């Protein structure tokens, strides 16, 4: 099987097509961004934009704020998510499936909807705040650091849950038994075996939460008040009251990429210290949990998920309340939905569905191809493609939105305002995540299984479609669900790229909130919640998995 003598292969064509697409839709906009940041409108090289940023603490504080709150959110998400994943994977928790589905739903909602709902509950005139004030209890302000922390942690711990659940499933029961056999059980085994084995996944989940929380624009926008974070600053500078300043916004975008790049490199370094592959021939059997510890486990899971899910329910409740502007009145009606119908509801839903599905299909196809190229046909070309495809991982949504706008705002590729630019930005935003999960899955599939298929006379293509892809299916689905979530609830890049024709449900919701139409916002948010719920249930039904396999 000397490769040099092989004729021009299909896979080489695939590699080249992928490379060309990435160069056009990713590398070119990135360079445009960089150019905008360092070239003045007069066409001269200048670092004045960066000087402007670092000369005022008004600007630099936003970076400190962002990093601080994001690190805290990451830590808390891990602390909340790992225990629930552990209980879920190793013990028979009653209603486990429901808990899992609800958790996914929590992560499916756009963060700013959570923020909005929490404002309605715990804000200055929130329902719980007012209720407790009757008893003379003042819970204090949830605006600023604290509020962002609560909302984002509750939003992102389900991601950790989903990730860790996947890792725990790959732990072979014999490893657990071997450790028990050598006298290591309980908490010690949890730490020295289970968590140590899951370390790559823990780090992956941590990075994922960090990137998403750092890039989250909606939550700090609504809840931050004086606590301004970086994405909010980018948006304000781009579309702020001072008029459009592309150059400064581009410079900010470069700084944002720099920060996330450092975090990314640090995570890579940390992960490189944990390199091993697992293949669970004997998955862990879930144990019965009884007594006090059983009760506590159940209580932990139920309370956590209930609190995380509360805002969603409350939004649905609010959507049926009478409302005028920002004030809710007693009594229930469908008034909010009627208003929504007049405000592009149908178009929003249609846009969300069409663009979402289209983007998802593209993402899955590309992710599977890249995973295969990188894992099974490693070469300089394919590794380059892999590296390029990871670039968006470190680009906050607002940055991608800005880069797209700069690159495709004028001829020859004037895509601004089209569905195409929205779909492209969705694909770019989500691709790295799906590629990671597809690659990780493929790495865990023993090469000898594919060799077996080939030795039985299957062509490479048939081996790929009949053996490799079906075996990857679980991993691909897990990535795809998360991608679908993120696409449907995407705000930070859409807010820069959308217009009236390409408006999505999420955008409609956001617009309603910022305009103070709280009832209308609740109606949009409720519909968004229903759409995501239905799509999840549909997925579960189609995939027919007994267990919720992600």
């Amino acid at each position, binding site marked *: *099987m000397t490769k040099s003598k092989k004729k021009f292969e299909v896979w080489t064509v695939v590699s080249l097509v992928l490379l060309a697409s990435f160069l056009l839709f990713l590398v070119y906009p990135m360079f445009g961004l960089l150019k905008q940041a360092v070239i003045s409108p007069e066409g001269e090289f200048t670092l004045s934009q960066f000087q402007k940023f670092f000369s005022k603490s008004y600007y630099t504080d936003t970076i400190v704020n962002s990093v601080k709150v994001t690190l805290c959110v990451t830590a808390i998400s891990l602390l909340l998510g790992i225990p629930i994943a552990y209980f879920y994977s190793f013990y028979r928790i009653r209603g486990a499936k429901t808990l899992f589905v609800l958790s996914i739903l929590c992560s499916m909602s756009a963060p700013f909807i959570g923020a909005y709902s929490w404002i309605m509950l715990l804000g200055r005139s929130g329902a719980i705040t007012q209720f407790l004030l009757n008893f003379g209890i003042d819970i204090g302000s949830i605006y600023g650091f604290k509020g962002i922390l609560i909302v984002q942690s509750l939003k992102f711990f389900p991601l950790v849950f989903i990730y860790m659940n996947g890792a725990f499933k790959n732990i072979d029961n014999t490893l657990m038994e071997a450790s028990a056999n050598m006298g290591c059980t309980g908490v010690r085994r949890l730490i020295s075996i289970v968590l140590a084995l899951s370390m790559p996944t823990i780090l992956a989940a941590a990075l994922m939460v960090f990137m998403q929380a750092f890039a989250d624009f909606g939550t700090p926008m609504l809840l931050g008040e004086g606590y301004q974070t970086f994405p909010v600053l980018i948006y304000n500078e781009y579309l702020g009251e001072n008029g459009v300043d592309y150059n400064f916004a581009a410079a900010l975008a470069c700084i944002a990429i720099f920060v996330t790049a450092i975090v990314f490199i640090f995570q890579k370094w940390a992960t490189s210290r944990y390199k091993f592959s697992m293949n669970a021939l004997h998955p862990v059997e879930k144990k019965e949990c009884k007594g006090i510890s059983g009760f506590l486990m159940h209580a932990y899971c139920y309370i956590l998920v209930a609190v995380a899910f509360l805002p969603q329910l409350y939004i649905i409740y609010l959507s049926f309340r009478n409302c005028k502007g920002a004030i809710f009145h007693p009594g229930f009606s469908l008034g909010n939905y009627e208003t929504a119908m007049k405000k592009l509801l149908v178009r929003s839903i249609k846009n969300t569905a069409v663009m979402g599905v289209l983007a998802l299909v593209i993402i899955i196809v590309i992710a599977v191809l890249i995973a295969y190229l990188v894992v099974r046909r490693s070469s300089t070309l394919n590794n380059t493609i892999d590296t390029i495809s990871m670039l968006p991982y470190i680009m906050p949504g607002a940055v991608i939105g800005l880069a797209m706008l700069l690159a495709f705002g004028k001829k020859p590729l004037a895509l601004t305002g089209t569905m195409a630019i929205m779909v492209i930005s969705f694909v770019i935003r989500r691709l790295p995540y799906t590629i990671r999960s597809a690659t990780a899955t493929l790495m865990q599939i*023993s090469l000898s299984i594919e*060799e077996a298929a080939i*030795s*039985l*006379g*299957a062509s490479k293509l048939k081996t790929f479609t009949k053996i490799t892809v079906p075996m990857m299916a679980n991993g691909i689905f897990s990535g795809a669900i998360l991608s679908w979530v993120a696409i449907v609830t995407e705000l930070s890049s859409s807010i820069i790229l959308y217009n009236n024709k390409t408006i999505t449900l999420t955008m409609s919701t956001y617009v309603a909130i910022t305009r103070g139409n709280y009832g209308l916002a609740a109606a949009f948010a409720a519909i968004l919640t229903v759409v995501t719920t239905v799509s999840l249930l549909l997925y579960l039904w189609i995939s027919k998995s007994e267990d919720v396999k992600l």
Partner: protein
Amino acid sequence: MSDNISIRHALKKYGDNVIIPDLNLEIKEGEFFTLLGPSGCGKTTLLRMIAGFNSIEGGDFYFKDRRINDLDPAKRNIGMVFQNYAIFPHMTVRKNVEFGLKNRKLPKEKIVEQTDKFMKLMHVDEYAERLPERLSGGQQQRVALARALCIEPDVLLFDEPLSNLDAKLRVEMRTVIKQIQHSVGITTVYVTHDQEEAMAVSDRIAVMNAGVIQHVGTPKNIYQRPANLFVSTFIGRSNVLRGEKLVIENGKTYFVTKSGYKAEMTNVLPEYQKDQEVILSVRPEEFLLSKDTSVYGMTATVDDCVFLGLNTHYFVHLESGEEVEIIQESSIDSIIEPGTQIKLTINTDKVNIFTADTEVNILTGVQNDCAN
């Protein structure tokens, strides 16, 4: 439909790291051929070169007269059984077994018929609709074998197929594999590091070390007349006595041990009949033990003895200080107690003698098909 396999001047390297420098091998049509060697000796690498999963850096591989170096693995018509079975986890047993046939685009009835035949042959027909995850290791191995045989391959390859099974199942499965191989008569290349397993199943064995074939021969010949010291110690147990002498007196050839024990050898190759230093390789059963200390032989003292039913093992040390192991058929009278002085003689029909420098066998009767 079976092929013979010719390998000429095979070269395998990873970067600058040469795994197999220059290997030649002829595997006969229909024979059960085993590559045996310690881990890292290159036996699996060679097998995967035959299968097409490892690139070939040099040399020629032939199935009959067909050069297969650049032939796609899918077109080599090989049945391969993997160490971890490589059963497709998302397919039922039937789907696994018929997978190869489906790739040949055979008519449906033919596929079902053939699949049923081989599932029956391997006794996995009752699990036909089951997913592999609920099968035991032995059952998975049977499925893997059925799947490999089902395509009626020209060559059957086994990569340490029994190493994940327990000892009893291992013995059972190796019998199954041997019987099946004999009944279908497919040229088979089998890789293992277990020499007993190799002896049990093989028509011929190639003993490999560090990418070089040391000896190719029947199990009997490899055991009784190993081509060199490595083979002698790797196959079975051997007591290696270094620093002994070969002397010629009155046209007769003798070996003389350090303690002065001298015995005539009648089967030394003519070119080696000269005074020289040699290595004696004496298997534990090739020592003859005498409690009567007045007989001629090497004086030794018993250190320990182990009664194992059929045989009794004695651990003794010679006057020269060397420790050797002896196996005697257990006798009805008492076992020799530790501390007892005994006399040892060597069965000159069976003992092997190697040169001190190149460690090759200097006796007649070595049949090494290895062309190197």
